[in-house]
């Protein structure tokens, strides 16, 4: 059998209870009604039989009555017929009415005038006094008298019937009637196997019964409930009382119906033992009950089966979902029930697929983010290292002129040393130079940090780049002359004014040109050029110096990086100038780059846009540098 999950049990019980309950209820209702119908049918059938029996008995008696009445001739009492004629008439009647065994004529005084018998000798005019007989005394004109049933030779039921003429003078005709025919009728009534009929007279005494001996015992049945009820009810002729459950003389429960035999006041009872009467009912109830039970059993089985069918896909869903939930995202549910459960399973599968995809996507994203993070970390690391390096370099750069200042100062202050005026001046010049160098470095540092902190304010005004170039040319002329470097400014004519912070731009050009002059060997050339380009102005600072290797083009714009990191490669200069120049140019919305090869001189360019794009720059300035070095 199938797993006993709670859902299964619930469904099985519910379905079983519903169907079984319905069947049971239907079956019970059916049984109840069929029982009632059966009972009603039985009772009516019983009643019908009683009525039929009573009708036949009544017919029999009335026939006799009629026949007796036919010989009741008023004119005879007047002596209109001879005894012989009367005898012949009586004998004729005897032939016509087999039930009449004896016929007698009594006159008005009760004296027997004629008696004709089948068995005994006829008596003619015996004048026997029969006035005391009830047949004479109790008969009334127009109404027959019926005596109680008596028995001849203890086996044949007889009854005396007498009829009176209309007037007192007519006399009375008395007949002895053989009731064997009635006995035949009663004995032949069979109800089922053990049912039977019997007749009681108006007193409730048994007069006809299939077992004649019980009649001979003069059994008084007036105490029986059905007899009592019949006598109390007293329906009219041909009517019967409704059949009911009663008791027979031996105490058994029987189904009894009765009908009256009107002329004589008898009652016919048709009885059947209750068990036998109801046996078909019980049988059909039993059959129905069995069918109901069978149906209920089948329904329970069906409900178990149905519950199982319902629960299996649900369990599959549950197990599958658990598996997916546990992480087996590749698992798919296989449910083919062709209904909503299948649709649910398919949805589940879709969900699992999406989960899988999004999981993969997430993983991908995680990988990306991790990579980004790692990069950021690496960059942060690099930046940190850079910062440390920067600090180290700054420290070194700061210390170097300071050492010189202190060193020269100590020398100058050392009283032991005898310095010439020339040396003293020279030393003082060194101190001044170092001081200036230090100041220049600190200024650049401050500028850089201001820019990094986003607090560098530019004063943007339209200015002429030519003026800036000229100013730089003038400043560097003496230095260039000393190294016999050809320094010149070349400007195109129609260069408009650009919005710029002229001082800062000058600083930039000064830095670039200063580097050019510094690194170009004597007899070299340095030029400052400004050109009009699309959207702005381009400034070129070129030289015929040693050039910068391609691999260093980017590095040189980074703090303290020169074309070479070892101190051996380093020339004079703070290493911050280009970094600052890059920042300043980019703050203006321009670009700065270098074109150079080793041994072929260098050309530094930077652009300045014609429109004021410095707002952008502010944002650019505060963003970490790492973004710009993609």
């Amino acid at each position: 059998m199938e797993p006993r999950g709670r859902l299964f049990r619930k469904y099985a019980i519910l379905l079983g209870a519903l169907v079984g309950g319905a069947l049971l209820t239907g079956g019970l209702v059916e049984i109840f009604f069929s029982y009632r119908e059966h009972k009603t049918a039985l009772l009516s059938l019983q009643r019908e039989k009683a009525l039929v029996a009573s009708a036949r008995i009544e017919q029999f008696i009335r026939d006799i009555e009629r026949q007796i009445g036919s010989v009741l001739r008023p004119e005879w009492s007047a002596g209109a017929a001879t005894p012989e004629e009367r005898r012949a008439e009586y004998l004729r009647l005897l032939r016509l009415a087999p039930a009449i065994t004896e016929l007698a004529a009594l006159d008005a005084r009760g004296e027997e005038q004629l008696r004709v018998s089948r068995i005994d000798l006829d008596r003619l005019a015996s004048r026997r006094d029969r006035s005391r007989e009830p047949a004479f005394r109790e008969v009334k004109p127009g109404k027959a008298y019926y005596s109680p049933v008596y028995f001849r030779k203890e086996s044949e039921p007889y009854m005396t019937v007498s009829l009176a003429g209309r007037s007192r003078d007519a006399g009375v005709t008395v007949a002895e009637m053989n009731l064997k025919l009635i006995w035949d009728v009663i004995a032949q009534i069979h109800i089922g196997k053990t049912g039977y009929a019997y007749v009681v007279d108006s007193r409730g005494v048994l007069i006809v019964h299939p077992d004649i001996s019980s009649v001979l015992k003069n059994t008084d049945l007036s105490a029986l409930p059905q007899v009592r009820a019949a006598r109390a009810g007293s329906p009219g002729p041909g009517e019967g009382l409704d059949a009911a459950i009663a008791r027979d003389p031996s105490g058994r429960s029987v189904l009894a119906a009765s009908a009256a035999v009107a002329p004589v006041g008898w009652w016919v009872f048709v009885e059947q033992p209750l068990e036998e009467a109801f046996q078909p009912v019980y049988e059909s109830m039993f059959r129905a009950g069995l069918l109901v039970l069978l149906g209920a059993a089948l329904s329970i089985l069906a409900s178990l089966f149905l519950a199982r069918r319902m629960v299996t896909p649900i369990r599959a869903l549950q197990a599958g979902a658990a598996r997916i939930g546990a992480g087996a995202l590749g698992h798919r549910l296989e449910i083919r029930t062709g209904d909503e459960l299948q649709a649910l399973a398919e949805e589940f599968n879709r969900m699992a697929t999406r989960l899988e995809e999004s999981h993969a996507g997430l993983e991908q994203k995680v990988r990306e983010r991790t990579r980004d993070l790692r990069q950021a970390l690496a960059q942060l690391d690099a930046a940190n290292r850079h910062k440390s390096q920067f600090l180290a370099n700054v420290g070194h750069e700061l210390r170097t002129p300071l050492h010189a200042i202190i060193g020269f100062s100590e020398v100058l202050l050392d009283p032991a040393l005898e310095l010439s005026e020339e040396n003293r001046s020279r030393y003082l010049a060194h101190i001044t130079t170092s001081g200036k160098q230090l100041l220049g470095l600190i200024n650049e540092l401050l500028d850089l940090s201001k820019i990094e902190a986003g607090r560098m304010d530019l004063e943007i005004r339209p200015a002429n780049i030519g003026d800036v170039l000229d100013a730089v040319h003038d400043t560097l002329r003496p230095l260039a002359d000393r190294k016999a470097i050809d320094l010149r400014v070349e400007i195109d004519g129609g260069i408009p004014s650009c919005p710029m912070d002229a001082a800062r731009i000058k600083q930039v050009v000064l830095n670039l040109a200063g580097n050019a002059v510094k690194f170009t060997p004597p007899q070299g050339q340095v030029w400052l050029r400004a050109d009009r380009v699309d959207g702005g102005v381009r400034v070129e600072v070129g030289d015929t110096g040693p050039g910068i290797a391609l691999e260093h083009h980017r590095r040189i714009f980074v703090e303290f990086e020169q074309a070479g990191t070892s101190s051996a490669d380093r020339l004079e200069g703070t290493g911050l100038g280009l970094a600052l120049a890059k920042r300043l140019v980019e703050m203006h919305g321009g670009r700065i780059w270098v074109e150079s090869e080793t041994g072929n001189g260098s050309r530094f360019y930077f652009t300045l846009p014609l429109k004021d794009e410095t707002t952008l720059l502010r944002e650019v300035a505060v963003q970490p540098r790492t973004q710009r070095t993609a």
Partner: protein
Amino acid sequence: MKFVALVVALGICALAPLAAEVQQPKNDPRIAFLAGGSRHADALLLAAFWQRMKELNYVEGKNIVAEYRFADGALERLPVFAAELVRLNVDVIVAPGSGVLAARQATEVIPIVQAFGDPVAWRFVANLARPGGNVTGLSTLVPELGAKQLELLKDAFPGVSRVAVLWWFGAKQPGADHNVLLLGHIKTAAAALRVTLQPLELHGVDDLDSAFAAIAEARANALIVLRNPITATHRARIADFAAKRRLPAIYTDREFVDSGGLMSYGVNVPDMWGRAAVYVDKILKGAKPGELPVEQPTNFELVINLKTAKGLGLTLPRSVLSRADEIIE
């Protein structure tokens, strides 16, 4: 699914006994006739019996089997026959008085239906209402009829004054009382009707001739013949005698009249045998013989043979003729 199959199987098993009603095949019932007379002589009676049986849906050879054991007058063979029938284990034995005696001695179990005679007088039954035992049937003895027969004779022939009565007393044989009782009533009636009686006792068939002689000598002018084995067997002879002597005679049953007797008043014997069929039917349907009351006849028929009357040169009055139940021409 196995469970389902099991339940269904159980259900069928439970319902099967209810639904199926196995009919046990029954053998055809077997009845037997055991009588002291001859089958030929009793042909009418048998015919009447089978006629009634047919009305009750029994057809010999089709659904009922019959055995016949007739002693043809040799009454000592009856016990042998009875034992045979008991061995054959027949369902019912139908017999007149003599047969009933033999059957009763042979078995107290097999139901016996007495078709003729007086079971009470012969002590086959305890009483008429509840026979008890295994014998039931018809009591055809009505002693009072004797008086009626005399009355009829007087009604038909008012001049009758000396009446001879042929009767029989077979002490050891059943039926002996029958005639005696009848005779008793005849005597009473004779006194009332003022006729002289000449009872003639028969012991055997040889007594017939002497009886006839005595009747002739006594110059009787009427004859009453009581039924007994002797008169029954030799009824033709008796009829001849009556015819020769021009004696009006009345018999106890119509068989005599059929054989030439003048008139009879009594039980319709074939009718009795027909009623025996009713008993057989009831017993075959399961009734116990001890609980079936013995029937007494209440209808007696007057049968008149006009041919005989003509031969006798006698005419019967219309009053009597009109009372006849049957007139043979």
